[in-house]
């Protein structure tokens, strides 16, 4: 037994002594460009093909029709495409919110920057929804007191951008001062709490919409903005959004 331990020790020492210690002599680093000078591996191409075809078939199937071309640069304070964003998300999200809480959404605020592409006149496919809303943001409802709604209105007054809104009506004077702001036709009540539909990016302070952090409660709807748009498009044969008077400046 004792000999076996000694032999083992000797063997171990021998192995240790023999273990080569590798010295790092040289390191070479470079960046290799992947471009059309490389022809792809055919088996990989063949493997992707059915997936690609299925995705494209889905994305390119026509789900609605746009009467005109709509761009977010079409108007000063509200645009047809922005109104479509706000109205579509309201129409899709309110039943979800109402089912869970028994309450209704009072107003919608999204952001102008979140409209990522134009809608072109003609057939609308699912791809359109991916183009105008490539991000994965989801819809949330924040309950804000009237005083914080006033901050929201001041934000819009100062932003001078056509941020998509619904349920809210803002009229500015020629000198950009506030003429009036109403929610569903009623003056904003300081004591009342309002349910504001927005997306999680803005809720978390995106575009400096800090007033959302003063909310009383938050409802996560588990409903992606893109999916709400897709569901809305599928419901409507034609899309004919218009610029209206929901947010204007008197001239």
């Amino acid at each position: 037994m004792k000999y076996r331990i000694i032999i083992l020790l000797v063997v171990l020492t021998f192995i240790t002594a023999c273990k080569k210690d590798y010295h790092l002599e040289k390191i070479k680093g470079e960046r290799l460009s992947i471009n059309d000078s490389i022809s792809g591996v055919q088996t990989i191409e063949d493997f992707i093909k059915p997936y690609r075809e299925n995705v494209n078939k889905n994305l390119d199937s026509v789900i609605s029709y746009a009467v005109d071309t709509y761009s977010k640069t079409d108007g000063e304070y509200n645009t047809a495409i922005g109104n479509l964003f706000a109205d579509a998300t309201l129409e899709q999200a309110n039943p979800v919110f109402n089912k869970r809480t028994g309450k209704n959404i009072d107003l919608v605020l999204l952001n102008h920057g979140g409209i990522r592409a134009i809608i072109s006149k003609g057939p609308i496919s699912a791809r359109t929804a991916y183009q105008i809303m490539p991000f994965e943001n989801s819809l949330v409802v924040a309950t804000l007191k009237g005083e914080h709604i006033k901050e929201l209105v001041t934000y819009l007054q100062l932003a001078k951008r056509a941020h998509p809104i619904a349920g809210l009506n803002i009229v500015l004077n020629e000198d950009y001062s506030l003429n009036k702001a109403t929610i569903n036709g009623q003056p904003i009540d300081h004591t009342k709490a309002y349910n504001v539909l927005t997306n999680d990016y803005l809720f978390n302070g995106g575009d400096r919409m800090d007033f959302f952090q003063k909310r009383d409660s938050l409802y996560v709807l588990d409903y992606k903005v893109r999916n709400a748009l897709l569901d809305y498009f599928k419901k409507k044969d034609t899309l004919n959004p218009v610029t209206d008077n929901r947010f204007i400046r008197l001239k």
Partner: protein
Amino acid sequence: MKRRNFLQQTIASSAFITLGGLSLQSFNSSSKKHITILHTNDVHSHIDPFGPDDGRNANKGGVARRAALVDAIRKENPNTLLFDAGDIFQGTPYFNYYGGELEFKLMSMLQYDAATIGNHDFDNGIDGLNAQLPHAKFDFLSANYDFKNTVLDTHVKPYKIYTKNGIKVGVFGLGIQLDGLVEKRMYKETKYLNPIEIAQDMSRILKEEEQCDLVICLSHLGYYYRNFPEKASDLNLARATKNIDLIIGGHTHTFLPKPTIEKNAVGKNVLVNQVGCYGLYLGRIDFYFDAHEKTQEKGTTIIV
């Protein structure tokens, strides 16, 4: 005591850095070893190349082309390892339609060895990631996400050692703080541990206990945050640790034209690399070893 000379020359577009020591070189060609490390990060479901009309990346990228490049390099040097530094998911409809299945299957076909987990890999929740794991024939490494109370428990290892031609390559993964970046309901009970402390621990284990010849960190911490210099990042990680040879980074979509050479806590060189995003590039780092007696001290030449 080690004597260090630092010499930097620029020849054409390449910079040569030599860390010199005692020059007791005894060459033995049979004892030379060569390990090639290939890496990607933030591929974000970019499976097809960008089209010819793309404003920024026209005709760039594509998994099938990446496969061809990897195949050619493996033919040149069979002792090649292929890694990804996270954010495999999210960015094209392939992810929305298949939830990451195709990404994992293709990475398996390309014979990736390991990947770490990026914040976007939680985009379908930790359950969504777990559901796709059967399609991945490679390792997921993360040392600072504690998945003990989640479905990923035991499916993600802190580190793994790959032995190639007798060279032990120790690889560990690091992930970014999820709080504020990913909703809690997505990552559930995943615990984020201080990546710098974990890295100090990991590199000690791999270098001293496991006697690895090479220590590599797959990091999704981000390259560096100029406005938040204290935030955990690859450069801070390089400076605060020792025994790491290479940090393969991600998250910040940083297009480094060549790896950055940073000094670690004991003044030794560490390579930090990141190849932007969307599979537009493949990073390649070659390590050349020679066997020598333990008493010898020699430097390492870095060519980038």
